[in-house]
């Protein structure tokens, strides 16, 4: 017999999953996660999902570093390494460097956001125990799934079953992985 990873409950509507998550939080559960087919408004305030400001700040840092790097490359190229007098313009002709600096700044920011988004979500991660649950498949389509993980200090299979039934779950399943 494989180890118990957690117990999942499947709900039909976003409202049901939001109120279920709220109830779990109020009942003192901490290690639970909701899987939904789209970003359900308000769920992230109930289910613990990490720092909010991290990714925007990361993208801002990417932008600053990208701009600095791009300007530095251009400055070093045109003013230090390979100075070329074009119509008497200054070697460090910042207006002409602004375009490439701007574009590279945006590229660095988007790259930071993309990589950061994956890293903060723990992706790529081709296997996760939740994939063992048959009912989980529909979480990417039309169902809203909540999983209480066995690591939760208050984890008790019987009381969770009862709670989920009370919350109106369409289906309840034990996930073993």
């Amino acid at each position, binding site marked *: 017999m494989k180890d118990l990873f957690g117990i999942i409950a499947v709900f039909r509507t976003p409202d049901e999953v939001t109120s279920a998550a709220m109830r779990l939080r109020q009942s003192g559960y901490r290690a639970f996660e909701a899987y939904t087919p789209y*970003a359900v408004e308000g769920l*992230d305030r109930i289910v613990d999902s990490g720092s909010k400001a991290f*990714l925007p700040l990361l993208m801002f840092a990417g932008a600053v570093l990208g701009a600095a790097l791009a300007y530095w490359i251009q400055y070093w190229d045109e003013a230090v390494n390979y100075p070329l007098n074009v119509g008497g313009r200054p070697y460090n002709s910042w207006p002409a*460097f602004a375009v490439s600096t701007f*574009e590279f700044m945006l590229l660095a920011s988007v790259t930071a956001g*993309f990589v950061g988004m994956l890293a903060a979500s723990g992706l790529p991660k081709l296997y996760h125990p939740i994939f063992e649950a048959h009912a989980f498949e529909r979480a*990417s389509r039309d169902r809203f799934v909540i999983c209480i993980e066995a690591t939760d200090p208050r984890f008790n299979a019987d009381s969770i079953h009862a709670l989920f039934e009370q919350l109106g779950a369409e289906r309840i399943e034990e996930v073993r992985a």
Partner: protein
Amino acid sequence: MAMTLTNELPPEAPVVAPDVTLTSLSEEVSNRVLMERAPRWWGVGFGISFALLMVLIIQLAWLFINGIGVWGVEIPVAWGFAIAEYVWWIALASGGTIVSALFFLTRSPWRSATNRIAESMLLSAAPCAGLMPIMHLGRPGLFYWLFPYSNVMGVWPQMRSPLLWDFVCLLCYILMSTMYYYAGILPDLATVRDLAKTRSKQILYGILALGWRGSVAEWRNQRVVYAIMSAIMAPMVISVHSVVGLDYAGGLTPGWHDTQFPPYFFFGAVISGTAVIIMLTILVRWGYSLQKVLTEYHFNAMAKVMLVGSLMLCYAYVWEAFGPLYGSDVADKTESYQRMFGFTAPLFWSEKILTVVVPQLLWFPLVRRSQLLLFLISGGIIVGMWQERFMFTTASLEHNYMPSYWGHFYPTLWDWAALAGTIGLFLTMFFLFLRFAPIISLAEVREIIEQEKPK
């Protein structure tokens, strides 16, 4: 007739047909990706596209063996089809980002079902744009000299040149668009993965979906990053196309040396990009029977964007004619006159009809909802914008400052082969997107469905 012609779409008209549910949406769209055999129209379309792609390969081989003398470019008209089509393709691509990013920021509901089509279009058009200047290089194998990299020659690119800015812009644009596309499609790939029946497709889409589970943290991170990316992509695309305009404005040739070029190019991107998206949306809607997801609402909205683009373009045309007239530069006046009434007159006037006069039909709500008319108007706009890009590239060079230096541009068969070939590359890539990636943004349309659900 008069009643229907002016009947506006009611404000409560559904964005997505009311009988579309989360279940039917996911299954219908994913099944288009997962079906064992592609539908016949796809096979025919892909076959034609692939044949055109072979034209491009042959053209490239002939061009690389013989040099750009196989084209019609000559002195004085050294910028011909390749540069004009570079602008044309990048404008089509930019239109995709405008629809996708700009209207994400305005939270326009019609953007949710069309943005994937727009982004697939842009990712198919951008390589065509990128190929054009490389073909145009006398020594295409050395294009990498544009990168600022440490080399044994000790030579560095000239960072002050708009041509180099353009290279940086296009490179950044393609990379950013790819990440923007992937950040948006990730949840949808997970849907396809979970619906896949065969082992090979489960593995393929399992890898592509990177293990997306749809957990709260994943969604929050994705929404945050996607929103910021959109806010970045919108100014990005304006800057990319403006820099293409600077390639011209930076030249001293009469007709090019004009401060209005950057916005003027952007206006062209709005109208031609929307036009190609409308045509492809009609194709997708018909081919994949997605009438319930891509509704009149979408066409109505996109047609309005196209109409606005047409008016902005009209403004640029007026200014383009007014500038030389008001100024005192004889060369500018001559060039402008020659463009309107000389060798290029047929192109000039037919193009104005296609991109400014005919689109005024879009004021009528009936026209905005008639797919046949929209298809024809959009096709006309795309052809017209091609004429426009071609005309201002060559007409200015044809009538430079010195009358003794005047000459005309005549395209050769290889010029046309380059055009047909890049269209083949574009369509081949788009058909592959159609076949292997969900063409509707499922996650976002799900939100629309939930919002429209009667409370």
